[in-house]
C-alpha cells in the first residue's frame, strides 16, 4: 500500500483467474480467425492448420468459463445469469455470447467439417469407439456427394457468421473492461478493438506453435509454405495491434487527464516490468522485429522455423502480459488517484497460481483427446 487508497480497496477484486479468462477467449477467437482464412478467403497455404485451429478453438473455449466460475463468491448461483439476466449488464450477456459461439458457430462448423470422417469412423471402428462415433453422427450418416456439398455450403455460411461472432466474443470481453467509467485504466472505446486484434495475434501464434510442435512430435515435416503464410499474417496483424495500443498510450499521454499522473507513476513503478519490459519490449517489439526480419531477409528454412517458434512463444508471453496489465494493473491504483496497492499472487488457493496453471494446461489435454477422436491431420503429409 502506498499513500492513500479508499479503505475498501485494500484487496484486489479480480485475480489471475480473471487474467486467464480474456487470455483463453482471445486464443479461441484468434484460432477461429486463422481457420476462416482457409475457409472463406481460400488461403490454401494455411490449410494444414485448418482443422487443428478449429479443435484448438474448441478446446480453449470449453475451459474459458471455468476461471470465471471458480472466481465467483457463489458459483452455485451462476445459472441465474442465464435464467434471469440483467439486461443492462455487459457481464450478463456472457452466457449468451458464449453459448452462441460454442453451439452455433464452433461445434456446428467442426461437426459439418468432420461429418464425413465421423460417419466413416463409425463404420470402421469397433467397440466403445464405434458407439462414440455413432452418437457423434447425430443419426446423419448420408455421405453422398450431394450431402457433402450441402455440408460444405452450410459450413461456409457458418464461417461467414463465425468471423463477426469471433469478433463479438472477444470484443465483448474488451467491452466488459472498456465500459467501466470508474476506472481510467480500463475506460476506453479502443479497448474492444485492441482486444480483438490482440486475440487474433495470440490465437494465430498459438496455432502456429501447436502445428509446428505436434507435426514434429508426430515425425512429419512442417509445411514451410504454411508457417511462412501464418507468420506473414501474424506480422501484419501484430503491427495493427501494436499501433492501436500505442495510439491508446499516446492519446493518454498527450491528453494527460486527471488520472494521468497516477497511472504514469504506476507504469513507472509496479507495472514497469510487466508492462514496459515484458509486454512491450519482450512480448511485442521483439517478435515484430523477428518476424519483420523474416519478411525482409531471405533466411534458410531451419532458421526461419526457429525464428517463428521464438516469435510465437514471445507473442504468447506478451499477450498474457497484456491481459495481466489490463486486469491486475487496473486494480493497482486507488480510484482516489492518490495511492496504490499490490497484488499478492497466492500459490495453492482457489484463485492461485496453481489453479491458473491447471486451467492453462487443461485445454491442451482436451485438444489431445479431440485430436485422437477427430484427427486434424492431412492425409498427404511428408516425413
Amino acid at each position, binding site marked *: 500500500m502506498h499513500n*492513500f487508497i*479508499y479503505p*475498501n480497496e*485494500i484487496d484486489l*477484486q479480480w485475480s489471475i483467474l480473471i487474467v486467464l479468462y480474456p487470455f483463453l477467449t482471445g486464443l479461441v477467437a484468434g484460432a477461429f480467425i486463422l481457420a476462416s482464412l482457409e475457409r472463406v478467403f481460400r488461403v490454401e497455404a494455411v490449410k494444414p492448420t485448418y482443422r487443428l485451429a478449429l479443435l484448438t478453438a474448441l478446446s480453449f473455449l470449453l475451459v474459458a468459463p471455468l476461471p470465471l466460475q471458480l472466481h465467483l463468491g457463489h458459483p452455485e*448461483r451462476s445459472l*441465474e445469469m442465464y435464467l434471469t439476466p440483467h439486461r443492462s*449488464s455487459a457481464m450478463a450477456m456472457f452466457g449468451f455470447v458464449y453459448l452462441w459461439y460454442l453451439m452455433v458457430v464452433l461445434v456446428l462448423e467442426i461437426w459439418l467439417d468432420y461429418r464425413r470422417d465421423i460417419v466413416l469412423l463409425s463404420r470402421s471402428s469397433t467397440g466403445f469407439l464405434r458407439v462414440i462415433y455413432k452418437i457423434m453422427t447425430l443419426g446423419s450418416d448420408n455421405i453422398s456427394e450431394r450431402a457433402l456439398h450441402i455440408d460444405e455450403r452450410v459450413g461456409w455460411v457458418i464461417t461467414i457468421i463465425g468471423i463477426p461472432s469471433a469478433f463479438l466474443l472477444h470484443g465483448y470481453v474488451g467491452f466488459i473492461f472498456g465500459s*467501466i*467509467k470508474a476506472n481510467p485504466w480500463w475506460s476506453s472505446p479502443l479497448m474492444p478493438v485492441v482486444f480483438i486484434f490482440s486475440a487474433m495475434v495470440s490465437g494465430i501464434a498459438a496455432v502456429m506453435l501447436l502445428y509446428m510442435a505436434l507435426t514434429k512430435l508426430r515425425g512429419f515435416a512442417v509445411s514451410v509454405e504454411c508457417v511462412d503464410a501464418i507468420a506473414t499474417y501474424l506480422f501484419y496483424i501484430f503491427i495493427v495491434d501494436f499501433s492501436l495500443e500505442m495510439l491508446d498510450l499516446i492519446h493518454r499521454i498527450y491528453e494527460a487527464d486527471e488520472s494521468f499522473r497516477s497511472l504514469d507513476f504506476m507504469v513507472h513503478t509496479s507495472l514497469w516490468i510487466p508492462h514496459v519490459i515484458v509486454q512491450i519490449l519482450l512480448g511485442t517489439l521483439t517478435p515484430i522485429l523477428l518476424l519483420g526480419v523474416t519478411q525482409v531477409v531471405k533466411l534458410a528454412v531451419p532458421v526461419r522455423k526457429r525464428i517463428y517458434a521464438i516469435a510465437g512463444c514471445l507473442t504468447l508471453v506478451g499477450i498474457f502480459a497484456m491481459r495481466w496489465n489490463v486486469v491486475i494493473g487496473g486494480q493497482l491504483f486507488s480510484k482516489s488517484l492518490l495511492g496504490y496497492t499490490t497484488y499478492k499472487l497466492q500459490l495453492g488457493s482457489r484463485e492461485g497460481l496453481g489453479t491458473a496453471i491447471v486451467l492453462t494446461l487443461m485445454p491442451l489435454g482436451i485438444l489431445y483427446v479431440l485430436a485422437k477422436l477427430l484427427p486434424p491431420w492431412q492425409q498427404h503429409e511428408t516425413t
Partner: protein
Amino acid sequence: MNMNRRFFITLTGAAAVAWESVLAGAPEASPNYKVADHWWAMLIDVDKCIGCGNCVRACAAENNVPEGFFRTWVERYQVDDQHMEEPIVDSPNGGRDGFPARPGTLPASVKEFFVPKLCNHCADSPCTQVCPVGATFTTPDGVVLVDEKYCLGCRYCIQACPYGCRFIHPEKNVAQKCTLCYHRITKGLTTACCEACPTSSRMLADLKNPNDPIHEFMKKHSVQVLKPQMATGAKAFYANLDGAVR
C-alpha cells in the same frame, strides 16, 4: 425457573415458528411506509465534521460490518494551497477510532478537514447497471440495495463503483455496502450514522418531502457531489466541499 412439560412444549413450538421466520429472512413489516412518497438522500456538511468516528462505529454496530471493511468511513484531508492537486489524505481504520493528531503544527498554508464518505445512492448507479443478475437494485424510494440471496459475488459492481463504497463480505461472499439503514428509515427512524453524529454533520434527507430541511439548506449553501464528472446522479450531497476531495 420452574418449567413443566406443557410449558416446555409450548416454548419449543414458538421457538420453531420464530426460527422458521428468521430462516425465511422475512423483512420486518412497515405498514405505514409508502415507498412512492420518499426519495432518500444524505446531506453532509464538511465544515461540521470533527472526525470523531462515531458514525463509523455506529454503522458497524448497527449493521454487523465485518472488521476491516466499511459501509461508511471518514477521511482526513490536509491541503497545501501550493499543492492543491496533491492533498495528504488518511483514514486509519476508516476513521473508526478517530484521528491521532499529526506531529508538529500545521503550516499556515495548510488547511485540514474531515470528509465522511458512504454510498452515494446514485440515481443512475453504475453498480446497478453492471450487476449481471440484478441483485443490486434501486428501490422506488431511491436507495441502492443488494439482495444477498441473489448476489453471485462476481465483484463487477465493486469495479464499477467510482467511490470505493463496496466490498465483498468475507464470510457471506456477497457484495455489501451502505443500505442507508433501510430497515430504520422505513420505520420513521434516521440512519445509525446520522443518529450518532454529535455535530449533525450528516443529515438524512427526503427530497420528496416538501417540509424536509434539505430544501432550505440547499438554497442557502453551495452543495456539490463527489466526482460530478462521473454523472452517476449521486445523492450524497456535500456542503462546503473542497475541490481537492476525491
